């Protein structure tokens, strides 16, 4: 029954304890809704058939509702709605009261990606690892505009607000990978602000987090800049490429061709004379490239929209320099060579 209704209503799979509760209320509510609206529609059609106009000048009797009818039309819907409310509110209170033993994960939204940080140390971009069968509390905030964390398979959603923490919790019931979507409109790439929850068996999760901590300790020796989420490996340009991937730069900037996307291509960009929207022409040198990351709307290239988010405070100096190095390495005569770094 549950499976049939779920499929009929196109609901995603139920992968949290909350999903079962909420879906059963959903079935109840939607069946009543369909029966009532079809009932009203059918009654109107039945009345039409029974009382269709037979003569041009037909007179009709005066009919007024009785007191019983009036009481019924008020009390029946009111009763029904209050039952829905009682169940829905009970479940909502449960959803807003995380159990004290819940594991915490900090979630940070920014245009246009998710960052997940664990109190134990590791953090990751886009992928949230959680254990099955253990309550997990998400503490959510945003670095820029409002976003909203939505995990359809868990039936949970909570806005990410700048300057505030909101919370939501769930207990995942099935291992697997589930999509995270942003449901608060946040700009040009809103519809691509996706992430993923990976639900691991509890033991596998413990193993994973230990692994992460080991990696973190060893990484700290190498990493000059502790704020970077991407460890430096190989040349500065290769590190710059990893940072650019992690920061989502490549969603709007092409690096494998000179084709423009939402933003200008990076190939052959370095030292190129570039025309701006205000008519000025500048040379895309190191200073300009860095400025474009930190204050992107000051000098916008002609033909593009000023939609790039501000990376001031989100990129460290070393990371910005690495991205500049990466851009410098992107020459159309050498592109293949630079992209070869992918294999490492």
């Amino acid at each position: 029954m549950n499976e049939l209704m779920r499929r009929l209503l196109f609901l995603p799979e139920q992968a949290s304890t909350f999903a079962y509760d909420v879906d059963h209320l959903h079935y109840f509510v939607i069946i009543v809704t369909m029966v009532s609206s079809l009932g009203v529609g059918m009654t109107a059609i039945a009345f039409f058939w029974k009382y269709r106009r037979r003569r041009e000048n037909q007179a009709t009797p005066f009919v007024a509702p009785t007191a019983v009818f009036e009481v019924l039309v008020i009390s029946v819907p009111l009763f029904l709605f209050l039952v829905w409310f009682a169940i829905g509110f009970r479940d909502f209170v449960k959803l807003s009261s995380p159990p004290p033993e819940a594991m915490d994960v900090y979630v940070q939204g920014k245009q246009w990606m998710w960052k997940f940080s664990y109190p134990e140390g590791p953090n990751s971009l886009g992928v949230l690892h959680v254990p099955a069968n253990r309550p997990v509390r998400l503490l959510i905030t945003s670095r820029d505009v409002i976003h909203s964390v939505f995990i359809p398979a868990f039936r949970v959603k909570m806005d990410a607000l700048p300057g505030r923490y909101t919370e939501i919790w769930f207990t995942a019931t099935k291992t697997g990978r589930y999509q995270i979507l942003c449901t608060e409109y946040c700009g040009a790439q809103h519809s691509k602000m996706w992430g993923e929850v990976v639900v691991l068996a509890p033991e596998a999760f413990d193993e994973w987090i230990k692994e992460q901590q080991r990696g973190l300790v060893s990484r700290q020796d190498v990493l000059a800049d502790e704020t970077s989420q991407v460890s430096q490996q190989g040349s500065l340009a290769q590190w710059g490429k990893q940072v650019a991937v992690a920061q989502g730069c490549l969603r709007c900037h092409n690096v494998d061709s000179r084709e423009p996307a939402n933003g200008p291509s990076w190939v052959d960009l370095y030292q190129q004379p570039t025309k701006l929207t205000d008519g000025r022409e500048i040379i895309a040198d190191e200073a300009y490239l860095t400025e474009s990351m930190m204050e992107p709307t000051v000098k916008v290239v002609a033909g593009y929209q000023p939609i790039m988010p501000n990376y001031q405070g989100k990129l460290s100096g070393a990371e910005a320099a690495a991205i500049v190095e990466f851009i410098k390495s992107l020459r159309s005569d050498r592109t293949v060579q630079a992209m070869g770094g992918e294999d490492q």
Partner: protein
Amino acid sequence: MTAPITTTDTAPAGPAFPKKHYLNDGTTIRSWLLTHDHKRIGVMYLISAIIALFLGGIFAMVLRLELLTPGPTIIEALTYNRMFTLHGLVMIFMFMIPAIPSGFGNFFLPIMLGAKDVAFPKWNLASYYIYLAGSSLMLWGLITGGADTGWTFYAPYSTTTTTNITPVLLGVFIIGFSSILTGLNFIVTIHTLRAPGVTWFKMPLFVWAVYATSIIQVLATPVLGLTTLLVSAEHAFGFGFFDPARGGDPILFQHLFWFYSHPAVYIMVLPAMGVQSEVICAVARKNIFGYKMIAMSSLGIAFVGFFAWGHHLFTSGQSAFDAGAFAAISMLVGVFTAIKVFNWVGTLYKGAIAFTAPFAYICGFLFFLVFGGMTGVALATVSLDVHWQDTYFVVAHFHFIMVGAVIMGFLAALHYWFPKMFGRKYPENWGLLAAGLIVLGFNATFIPQFLLGNAGMPRRYYEYPDRFAALNVASTAGASLLAFGFIIIAIYLAISLKYGEVAGRNPWGSRGYEWDVPSPPPTENFDAVPVFTRGPHEYQDVPEELARVSHAI
């Protein structure tokens, strides 16, 4: 019962078109632009609103075409974001809010009260020009500045967007004044200009609905004006009202915005409910079942509508207590609406129902209002909303109310009152065909969107994961059917304006007061102050001729 309802079958020549009426009382452009006649102002509002409906419809079709495939289809992301902003703003502020109250309300409210005009005819004209000025500024701003915030202007996105949003916000601010002036004008008109015999409980139900609407317009719109000013000030000068880094509150905007925009839903839907009450009596030729319940539930909706706004913020970190309180209050709107629905269905009981285009639209209206309204109650059921919030389920729900109910009401009004306004009939067969297409196309467009919401597709998505593709294709197909229906209506109504069969005073045999004046009505509406001796929805055993109003003086 000898008096014929329509004289077409008894008088071979058919009813004569009146020689003098409001349409030919001055035919220069100047006589239209400077008119104080509520009927002409109503017609001008209607023309503007219909243009807005077609504009908004074209934007909607572009959106649906873009969503035909999961990736980019015909436009780029930024254009898509601008397009849904355009669609929302044009449909809501230029069509939905003024169409029925300012269009049909202006035309019929004074006639339904037995008055010559509204209380302040010059204000009435001023409010039309304010609407035009605000709309033009808003459209100009949208097209040149390219605002991409959605019609909801959520801060801090709207206060930090790089697109030029200030003219759009000022446009909305100005349109607000038009809404307030019209509302105030109608309230004063209803209080002071009722003819002898039109007591409060003998007012047509459309008047009650417009009265409730006007109260909301006067009380809620100032809050919208204030909010748009705050956003433009923050965007232009960097005030920190909504920016937490400067002590502002990012959620404050949502509270202010929905304090207006939730009641604004009732500004749109209450007049459509009023139309429903008028039309259902005329097509069933039957007294309205439970007049007082319908009249009072309009006021009830207007009242509780002010305290339900928080149900838009269930997932924004609001406390569980607040969420519960707002949810419980929202349920009451459902109860008031249910009262109306049962009374409309009751009106059909023992009636004499004619199968006409207006009847098709009121059946559609009933179905859409019940389904859309109950999904609204479902959305107000707090725990269910967590999954549905900001998904296509919400989009489908409010389109069921706004396109389903409001546009059905608008089309029912347009067909029902067309003979009165222009003195000619529309072709009934074409009317029924278009109504069928629209009801079908509407279901085909929005039922897949409910399912998309269930499946978890967020709204305002330019691209989407492949698993949502099939339902999006179905929705786009339905939208094409809907568009086709509208085009048919536009064509036959335009032809009927000039070549339609002459309607005569009362082609529907309706007892509404407005059917007592010639079609089209003369500029002064009535030759003398009318005295009404019967109610506007009474059909019992009184021959039509005797039911006409008597004229004092």
